[in-house]
């Protein structure tokens, strides 16, 4: 896949198929330590132990286990290509945690891509599921928690395409801001401490 945000969309869909109602998505970037970590946690039914060690082999996947088939294989390949790795852990009480690590500066690392489009797509297609999305770059954070949003907005307005469309734009703006705040310390110095207003 061309963007890591597409991998995220794919893995989150796995969790939804596994019957989760709340999914945590963490994207953590540390440029100082040169890593990028993606963590996707769901509270679905988990993965049986006998299938856990075959997860990233696309060829053992059958139709019934397709949700943990090619998607995870592709993410594992993307991580390993960047001197990182993929780890899948299943909680004793169910729930799956997928952790993918990447060397941030690796030349083969795909860009994170359009996370706002990924989140808007997830919200649009799965109104009954809650998402907690955290994006951290060098310690600065953006957090989207639909549980809070649903409380604030009232029950069904988060299903309205118009609302989701606007929310998507809002996420995109916030992420751009986060990036320009964290990624360009030299730009801040040039502008005497001010960030770019773009």
């Amino acid at each position, binding site marked *: 896949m061309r963007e890591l945000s597409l991998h995220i969309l794919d893995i989150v869909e796995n969790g939804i198929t596994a019957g989760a109602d709340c999914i945590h998505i963490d994207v953590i970037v540390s440029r100082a330590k040169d890593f990028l970590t993606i963590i996707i946690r769901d509270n679905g*039914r988990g993965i049986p132990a006998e299938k856990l060690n075959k997860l990233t082999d696309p060829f053992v996947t059958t139709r019934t286990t397709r949700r943990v088939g090619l*998607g995870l294989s592709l993410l594992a390949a993307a991580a390993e290509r960047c001197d990182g790795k993929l780890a899948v852990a299943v909680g004793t009480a*169910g729930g799956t945690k997928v952790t993918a690590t990447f060397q941030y500066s690796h030349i083969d690392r795909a860009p994170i891509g359009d996370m706002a489009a990924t989140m808007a*797509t997830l919200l*649009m297609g799965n109104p*009954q599921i809650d998402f907690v999305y955290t994006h951290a770059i060098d310690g600065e954070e953006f957090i989207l928690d639909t549980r809070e949003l649903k409380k604030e907005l009232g029950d069904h307005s988060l299903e309205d395409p118009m609302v989701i469309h606007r929310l*998507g734009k809002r996420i995109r703006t916030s992420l751009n801001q986060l990036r320009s705040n964290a990624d360009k310390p030299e730009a801040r110095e040039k502008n005497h401490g001010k960030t770019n207003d773009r």
Partner: protein
Amino acid sequence: MAKLTIDDLKKIKEETTKSTSIRDGEANIKITVHMGTCGIAAGARAVMNALMEEMAEADRQDIRIVTSGCMGMCSSEPNVTVESKEAEPIVYQKMDSNRMRQVFKRHVLLGEIQSDFALAKM
């Protein structure tokens, strides 16, 4: 993390049907964007976002958008299914954002099936 018991699943199912029945109140048309690994890799997200923009513009309460997994025709992804009460469901193949906009404006809003993009009747 709490394990989902059968009761929980029942509850979730109830809640789901409840919320869909509210939304089903006047839902005449259902649009399904297939979002398996194959669909996502082929560009289903861009299709979904174009569809969302069109929906926001049209402001119709009787159209529902849902996502689903792969339906086994990975080579023709991204696939989109349009179901309406009056006509048979139509599966569209190899969609992109422009095709999606055309299908939305012609088929969904005006009822003209876009047979050039169609894969099959279901």
